[in-house]
């Protein structure tokens, strides 16, 4: 079965810096990968999707990369703000109908 690894330790950065979060997976390369944001006590909210044949995807201050050789996706937030503080989840689908979620990484942006 697909195994997904996201750093369990919180990432602490200063406002204005670029935050980079990692999603590593084992076994088969997923057909697509999604990133979600989750605030405390709330449900996840979809941010970005990247497909296996795409290297990079951008949306405003967000950028996602997908390296099928390294079996890794990186999620970047440029010019980070305290309001970006949240837990970020990656979700992978290998072609099965249901995506598998990682455990998420907490991002804390300090003013």
């Amino acid at each position, binding site marked *: 079965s697909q195994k997904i690894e996201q750093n*369990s330790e919180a990432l602490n950065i200063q406002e204005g810096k670029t935050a980079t979060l990692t999603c590593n997976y084992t076994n088969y390369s997923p057909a697509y990968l999604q990133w979600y944001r989750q605030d405390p006590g709330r449900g*996840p909210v979809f941010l970005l999707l990247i497909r296996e044949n795409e290297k990079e995807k951008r949306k405003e201050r967000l950028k996602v990369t997908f390296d099928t050789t390294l079996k890794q996706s990186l999620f970047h937030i440029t010019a980070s703000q305290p309001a970006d503080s949240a837990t970020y989840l990656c979700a992978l*689908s290998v072609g099965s109908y249901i995506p598998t979620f990682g455990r998420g990484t907490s991002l804390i942006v300090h003013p």
Partner: protein
Amino acid sequence: DVKVTQSSRYLVKRTGEKVFLECVQDMDHENMFWYRQDPGLGLRLIYFSYDVKMKEKGDIPEGYSVSREKKERFSLILESASTNQTSMYLCASRNSGASYNEQFFGPGTRLTVL
């Protein structure tokens, strides 16, 4: 504005009680899901439904059942609640047709079983 609503934000029940968690979506989505989320374990799929009256077991269905009588509503049932079912329960819906379609999540129900 698309919406997934869950019947309760917080719920406290006693061991052995039958518990109903309700989820309603207003987006006419075919697919609906129930997850539980626990610290250190992430989101785990309990059950999902492709369409009305259809259901499939997820990764951790033991101790749970579901009902989907109408397209917009997906209910999670704990037949006899136990303390290890204390958790955050999240419902989600998704438009069918592409497995990469995003899931829309509800706000969650934090269930405590005493």
